[in-house]
């Protein structure tokens, strides 16, 4: 047993020396391979980070959102529905909400404006934790807004606290900045402006007995879907969106985009595997001679195969580590610059991402299986062809 272990250490030692001897060839293969892994890992990390960020952000979202639909389009919902909903057992509270888009002609950007009675929300107090500074407007406090970090920057407010919006009748309405959202939630709050319900009603000129949607909070989270079904039955012509459904939609969007991009990248990986095959199978005369010498000196075919295994494993493992490290740096420190246009495309103001990848062992294993295993598989047959070089060929130079 001891001899077996020593023998394998010796072969590993020889494989590492052999890799170092052909360092330029091996480093170039490793760099190209690391780039392919970097692309794959970046997508995987961005997707998981976005999904996690979305899931975190949705903890503050209502359990159920009710909207009125007409001819397949959303329209304002009467506040009278609020009373109907209160009759459903299990509903904790219903909070009316107004939201819409405000077009900023100067910056050619759409901001999402949200009018809320935050003090009515069960998690109202916790909402202030989502802010980097300031607070949400309280009851009867009009003319105050909370801005997304990107909106604050787009409006170039600096230290100024006052801003104005045009109403549809072209009258200016002024607001004071009461708070700014934390950058950690930027994926959902980048283009967001939150204000009091009545202020939003003024901005969009929505009648006093209507809002855009009703936010329903339930007592027991397990009952969200059941209560959702009850609401749909009670209020025909409405759209009922539950929080798990919204989270699932986010996951589907990110997964679809990531999957699409991954398929494109897999073709790059396949091209690399073909290149690796070509490289490994074209045995140079010096390599053929070296193997013949080793075999005549008493190395077995299996020993040569083990050398090739270690060489492929070390190259692919180093490429894997390098690729994943670069991907982490790219996602965390460079905000996934290369892929954000592909993965983030629903807002005019692109969020400035502060993504912290949620690295799971399963994700790393998946990238490992996508990259290292195909490379090793692509080099197995060339390695075997290399290992069966006849020992007596060393006799004839």
């Amino acid at each position, binding site marked *: 047993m*001891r*001899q*077996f*272990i*020593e*023998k394998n*250490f*010796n*072969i590993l*030692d*020889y494989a590492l*020396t052999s890799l170092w*001897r052909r360092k330029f060839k091996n480093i170039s293969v490793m760099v190209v391979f690391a780039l392919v892994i970097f692309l794959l890992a970046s997508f995987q990390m961005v997707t998981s980070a976005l999904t996690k960020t979305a899931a975190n952000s949705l903890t503050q979202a209502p359990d159920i959102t009710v909207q009125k639909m007409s001819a397949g389009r959303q329209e304002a919902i009467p506040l009278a529905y609020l009373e109907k909903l209160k009759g459903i057992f299990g509903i904790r509270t219903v909070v009316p909400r107004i939201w819409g888009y405000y077009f900023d002609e100067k910056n050619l950007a759409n901001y999402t404006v949200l009018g809320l009675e935050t003090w009515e929300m069960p998690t109202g107090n916790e909402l202030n934790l989502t802010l980097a500074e300031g607070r949400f407007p309280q009851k009867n406090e009009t003319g105050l807004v909370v801005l997304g970090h990107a909106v604050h920057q787009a409006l170039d407010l600096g230290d100024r606290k006052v801003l104005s919006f045009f109403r549809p009748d072209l009258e200016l309405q002024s607001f004071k900045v009461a708070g700014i959202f934390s950058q950690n939630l930027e994926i959902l709050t980048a283009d967001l402006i939150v204000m009091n319900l009545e202020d939003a009603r003024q901005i969009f000129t929505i009648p006093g007995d209507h809002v855009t949607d009703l936010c329903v909070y339930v007592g027991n989270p397990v009952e969200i879907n059941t209560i959702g079904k009850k609401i749909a039955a009670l209020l025909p012509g409405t759209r009922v969106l539950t929080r798990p459904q919204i989270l699932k939609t986010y996951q589907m969007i990110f997964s679809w985009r990531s999957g699409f991009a991954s398929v494109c990248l897999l073709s790059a990986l396949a091209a690399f595997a073909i290149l690796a095959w070509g490289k490994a199978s074209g045995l140079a005369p010096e390599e053929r*001679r*070296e193997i013949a*010498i*080793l*075999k*005549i*000196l*008493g*190395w*077995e*075919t299996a*020993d040569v195969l083990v050398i090739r295994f270690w060489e492929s494993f070390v190259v692919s493992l180093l490429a894997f580590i390098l690729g994943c490290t670069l991907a982490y740096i790219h996602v965390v420190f460079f905000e996934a610059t290369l892929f954000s246009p592909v993965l983030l495309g629903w807002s005019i103001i692109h969020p400035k991402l502060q993504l912290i990848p949620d690295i799971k062992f399963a994700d790393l294993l998946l990238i490992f299986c996508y990259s290292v295993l195909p490379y090793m598989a692509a080099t197995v047959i060339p390695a075997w062809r290399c290992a069966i070089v006849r*020992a*007596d060929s*060393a*006799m*004839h*130079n």
Partner: protein
Amino acid sequence: MPKNYILIELDSVTKIYNQGKANEVTALFQVSLQIEQQTMVCLKGSSGSGKSTLLSIIGCIFPPTKGRAVIAGRPLSRLPDRFLTIHRRECIGFIFQQFNLLPALSVIDNITLPLFPLGVPPGERKKRARRLTEMLSISHRENFPAGQISGGELQRVAIARALINDPPIILADEPTAHLDSRLSLEFLDILEHLRATGKTIVIASHDPLVTEHRSINRIVEVKDGRVHVP
């Protein structure tokens, strides 16, 4: 082992390459030969005479197609390739025509190559190699790449590599083909010294400097795949 112990025994050995194919070649035919321990034998013959094939069978590189070959007490004829390799690394040391060293490896790494598959730890490998480099006066070149040393030093490195396992049999295939007469004689002197220490040496050569050297105990002439023992 008694001094006249038969270390290499071939009985009616035939070697046919590509048997049953259009390009079938009979390289050796009905060769019988016995070589005692601690002798220095020269296989003499021109190119294509079958010397290298005979050396390959003695060196356990492949078994004969027909006949019986017993090398260092082990019959080869039906030995699987893996066991041939194991027997080769335990019993045979090779010295090749152009020494067949790996130019990018250091002298000491070249010498220790046969020890890697034996599971000899690095420290022990170096210790054994140093003993040989000192014996062959090449210790000052230990860490030089083999591609950067002189012809005479290369030849000593090749000898050291052949001796590192302490095998009972040393085989040399045209070892003086690329050496001048001074280095050739020096080489034969080293082999003579090794024979005196108990090694059995078989040299395949058609160089008169070798065939006529005083250290050669016996000449075996190989011609058209047959052996003529004078």
